[in-house]
């Protein structure tokens, strides 16, 4: 059908355009442009990747359909899986805005003047998060909650020039693994702090007994991985500060509709997984690493990540600029506060849209709805012979439940009934094989919850 047509998305790859370009360049064979490459390195043929041919959009669609049809989506009811990544409402407008080509296809706004809109959106993200956690400085995102914790620990090491970090014994196990990986090069020491068997809360006594002048930071998760909301946070902050250590809090963003914000109880650094704020599930990625710091020159100078600040243009208009770039790798290189450059900016924009849509009152209503629903499930479970929650403490959206038998078997039965149950805790602790971690959110109706409880009560009896 005539002369060659261009390859997908390479507009000038047709024979016609290629020969035009080559003749302007005065060469006759494109491989002259590879003349400096050792000959024996050049592959004889194209690599065997893809499906052995060029696929049109339509063929791609049909191909993908074959894969996707093998996935099962749990939507009615949505998953009850906990583990720090829960199904939440993503208002359609959020997706719509972050699909706008001017946001979606922009690079990091190195040219401020032509990307003011993006920068304002990121500044608004930073500002909204700052007001949510009540800390003054927020960066434009880390990769996810776990790397935000890792970066917080690295920052604490830099700030204090110490090497010990106190972490809860029952710290999110996947976070712990990530943090250990990131700290591998730093000769740091993670010291576990016991938790109270009854309440699931960090033991203040144990914490105080372990903190010393070598301690760079005290880290708590609030709520804890197993769901307990910490009560003694001010005392922990005090303990840390008394020894010159930083107090680092990992929080859950929606919970701050109901819970006191970390900035109010002494956090120096607050980090979170921002996925609940409009990112969706996406099988675990992208996430949004929230990173907030107290207003303190010493701390701010050691922060990782990109920050957008307010400024003015040459005619005095309000404008936005990337600030404090001398902390960053492209300027400071091996002395940078972090190596991060590509981050999760678009998810930060999503969070800004999300929080704007909710407003403060909306966030409170949302947190209340979640609180009620998770408590409703716990209560209903108790009625059918499941210990829920396992711990005597306040909880918000996730909590653990203990069953009369191995949870895994129950999980399989639930799946047969179209329900994706909780997260079996034997994934992390073999001794907790009768327990699972549930997550209940605003997407779980009473009917969904009742359906789960009825299925469980049926399965337990079997």
């Amino acid at each position, binding site marked *: 059908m005539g002369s060659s047509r261009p390859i*997908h*998305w390479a507009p000038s790859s047709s024979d016609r355009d*290629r020969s035009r*370009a080559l003749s302007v360049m005065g060469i006759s064979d*494109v491989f002259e442009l590879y003349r400096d490459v050792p000959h024996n*390195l050049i592959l004889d043929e*194209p690599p065997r990747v*893809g*499906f*052995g041919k*060029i*696929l049109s959009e339509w063929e791609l669609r049909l191909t993908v359909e074959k894969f996707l049809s093998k996935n099962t*989506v*749990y939507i009615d009811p949505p998953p009850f899986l906990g583990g720090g990544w829960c199904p939440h*409402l993503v208002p359609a*407008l959020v997706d719509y805005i972050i699909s706008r080509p001017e946001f*979606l*296809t*922009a*690079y990091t706004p190195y040219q*401020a*003047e*032509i*990307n003011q*809109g*993006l920068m304002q959106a*990121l*500044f608004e993200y930073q500002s909204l998060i700052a007001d*949510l956690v009540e800390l*003054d400085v927020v960066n434009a*995102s880390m*990769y996810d909650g*776990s790397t935000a914790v890792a970066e917080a620990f690295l920052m604490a090491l830099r700030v204090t020039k110490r090497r010990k970090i106190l972490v809860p014994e029952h710290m999110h196990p*996947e976070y712990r693994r*990530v943090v250990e990986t990131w700290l*591998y*090069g730093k000769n740091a020491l993670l010291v576990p702090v016991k938790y109270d068997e009854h309440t699931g809360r960090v033991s203040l006594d144990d914490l105080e007994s372990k903190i010393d002048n070598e301690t760079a930071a005290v880290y708590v998760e609030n709520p804890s991985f197993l769901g307990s*909301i910490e009560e003694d946070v001010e005392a922990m902050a005090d303990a840390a500060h008394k020894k010159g250590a930083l107090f680092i809090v990992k929080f859950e963003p929606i919970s*701050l509709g109901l*819970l*006191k914000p970390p900035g109010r109880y002494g956090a120096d650094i607050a980090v979170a997984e921002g996925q609940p704020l409009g990112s969706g*599930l996406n099988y675990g990625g*992208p996430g949004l690493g929230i990173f907030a710091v107290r207003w303190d020159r010493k701390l701010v100078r050691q922060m990782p990540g990109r920050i957008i600040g307010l400024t003015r243009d040459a005619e005095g208009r309000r*404008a936005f*600029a990337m600030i404090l770039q001398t902390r960053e*790798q492209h300027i*400071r*290189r091996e002395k940078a506060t972090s190596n991060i450059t590509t981050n999760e*900016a*678009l998810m930060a924009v999503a969070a800004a849209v999300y929080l704007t849509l*909710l*407003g*403060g009152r*909306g966030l409170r209503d949302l947190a209340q709805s979640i609180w009620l629903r998770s408590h*409703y499930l716990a209560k209903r479970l108790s009625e059918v012979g499941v210990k829920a929650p396992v711990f005597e403490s*306040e909880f918000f959206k996730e909590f653990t439940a203990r069953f009369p038998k191995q949870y895994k078997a129950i999980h399989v039965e639930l799946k047969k009934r179209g329900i994706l149950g909780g997260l079996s805790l034997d994934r992390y602790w073999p001794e907790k094989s009768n327990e699972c971690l549930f997550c209940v959110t*605003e*997407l779980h*109706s*009473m009917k969904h919850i009742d359906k789960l409880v009825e299925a469980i009560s049926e399965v337990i009896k079997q």
Partner: protein
Amino acid sequence: MSASKKEWRQARWSEPLVYEIGDPQKTGVILPYLDELPKLAERVGARPQGKVFREDTPDLPGLSEVETARHFNRLAQMSYGVDVGPVPLGSCTMKYNPKIFEEIVRDPRIKFLHPLQDEDTVQGLLEMLYLLERWLAELTGMDRCSLQVPAGAAGELAGALMIKKYHADHGEERDEMLVPDSAHGTNPASAAMAGFKVVRIPTSSRGTIDLDALISVVGPRTAGLMLTNPSTLGIFEDKILEVAKYIHDSGGLLYYDGANLNGIMGIVRPGDMGFDIVHLNIHKTFAAPHGGGGPGAGVVCAKGDLVDYLPRPLIERDDNRYFWNYSCDKCIGSMRIFYGNIVPLIKGFLYIASLGGKGLREVAIQSVINTNYFITLIKNAKGYELPYDPSKPRKHEVVISAKPLLNETGVSAGDVAKALLDHGLHAPTMYFPLIVDEALMIEFTESEPLETIEEYANTLKKIAEQAYTNPGKVKEAPTSTSVRRVDDVYANHPKTVTPTYRVYLKRLRGEIK
């Protein structure tokens, strides 16, 4: 009516901050199952109460859906991406992002999957990731890849940690990482984060790594070399096999920064060059959009013994069942939770699936044609020069210098960049690599048609012409963007630096000075 002369100006909305128009009582969302609340409250029989709870409502401004839509739509009109015009930021590989990918990843069978749901319920997705892993291993000439790293820099950190652990496991104390002076800032930063001392290797006048200098620093403390090939100058390291042999012979490892793979993809493989570990940037080479800074997706791949060190889990197949293998004997651990940035990874899958090996190779060739076509157009332009052996073909990108222009007119590379904005064109990467004065680093990728490249070259020439006749005018740029030149001093000065609205208000109230 004939066509008008080209005038461009960006939208300007003077859009207020959401704080200036919002109100915590406003909302744009109706929460699900609101009608259940009274019944729930009754059944639960309690309410959130006690010292952990706040009394007040978070002080966050809310807006209705229509107001929120307008606010962000207006902000979007004051932004600029590849879908609006060329963004030839060197080293960033700003490709056009095919819209079919966006449509596909919106499918709930991707979007609404929970990362911890049972593997038998996500076999289709796992199969796609498995194929992606196999393809990327093939493209790099590596044995296995981990999809876990959320971006290139995280891949570098993973690689550096793998090198560290490898040497430690072999009882060696190697604490020096060699990094060329032309390297991207993330390379030394990553090496330092992994606890290495960074040893800077100079670039020779040929634009390649200075082999003598390299030899002079390699030794028993050398853990490895982090290299991108082609370099950030767009020049292929023609002595790469010698370099690799030298490092290996002295007990070091080779890390490949894959951010610059585009021009050689499908033609030459890092594995064949002798690299042990490779990272790739899915959001560059494989066309996932940058999203104004992210999310991206990285992969880190390894060969031979190093495979054991890759971050876990790895995607694997067993009797047509796909699963995540967490087994970790020597591995460095995990770079983030779960499996990676799935959405951009799937876009990478779709990109490779659409093009196949042949298509990818053509893409690489086209990107190199585009670079060299541009060089031909700009080569003898007054005001610019091409440092480091102009006779050498460049690959994915080229670095030109505006040093003559600065010397002769006082107009800097930064001024040229701003002047480009006034033509509706995004500027190149400026002042990088650091070894080139007044650097303008330009990467068109295969996405730009010849016409855009011509327009870009012509505009650069026009700006230079104007610099020679009226330099003050050039220094006034930009005038067509939504704001005029932004005041970086004010932005960063300790007395005025304002990272959030919260700080802005505190400054107004005199609480921060």
